[in-house]
């Protein structure tokens, strides 16, 4: 995937409700023709879906990521962030006390629910 196609996909994924194609090329700072080519490539690769959309009478498309980026809240247990993120310690998951604390927090969250 080219850098621009990846950037377009990231931008589409960051809009969970979708983004208008007419908005996408402006945000990518490219012309609409180039944007159409990138969109076609993403459609062909099955990474996005395209829904016809009329914006003030003008036909455009709503673009939505098929595979949504993972929900960031998956790294949280209560307010505690998963200690593996940016961890520089020697990794022994079975013995990691930080990970155990996070799992306790996870269990507490589940218990409170």
């Amino acid at each position, binding site marked *: 995937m080219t850098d621009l196609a990846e950037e377009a996909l990231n931008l589409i994924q960051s809009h969970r409700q979708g983004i208008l194609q007419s908005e996408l090329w402006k945000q990518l700072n490219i012309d609409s023709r180039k944007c159409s080519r990138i969109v076609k490539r993403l459609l062909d690769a099955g990474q996005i879906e395209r829904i016809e959309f009329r914006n003030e009478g003008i036909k455009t498309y709503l673009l939505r990521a098929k595979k949504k980026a993972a929900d960031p809240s*998956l790294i949280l247990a209560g307010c505690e962030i998963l200690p593996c993120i940016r961890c520089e310690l020697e990794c022994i998951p079975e013995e990691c006390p930080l990970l155990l604390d996070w799992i306790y927090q996870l*269990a507490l969250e589940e218990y409170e629910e």
Partner: protein
Amino acid sequence: MVTIAEMLEDPAILAYLNRLVGEEGIALIERFPEEGEFSDEELAEKTGINLNTVRHTLYTLYEKRLAEYRRLKNSETGWLTYLWQLKMDRIHAVIEEDIISALERLEARLRFEEENDFYICPRCSATYTFANAASWEFECPNCEVPLEHFENELLISALRKRVRKIRECLGSA
């Protein structure tokens, strides 16, 4: 378009960036001018954040593809100037990469919790697997008090659920 201020309202994204660049790094992201590209010195001046912190934050964000630079060479002096801009729209993909690499560790821990029986010291809370506890004759080697069986079913259930959610989200359930 999701603005940076809106993005930072998400507690998970905020916690992630805090781990990545710290509070001063977040202050730089918040105060980063919306339009254009800027040198590190301009950013330090515009945001009032220490130049070293600005540089450190930009390099850290660059490693994660959350910032980009364009290099300009002064034809007379040969000096290089780096002009920076943020690429925060990549944040979801970046967090997903970290979740993917953490998943293996969570699965390893889950297996360990599922496959072992645990004993705990009622005084110092140190825990031991069955084999370790047996080798100490079920007595805490530090406190010399009898170890008690530790029920880890709640931990297993919570961790199992989170691992399943992650797998579902990544499409690998």
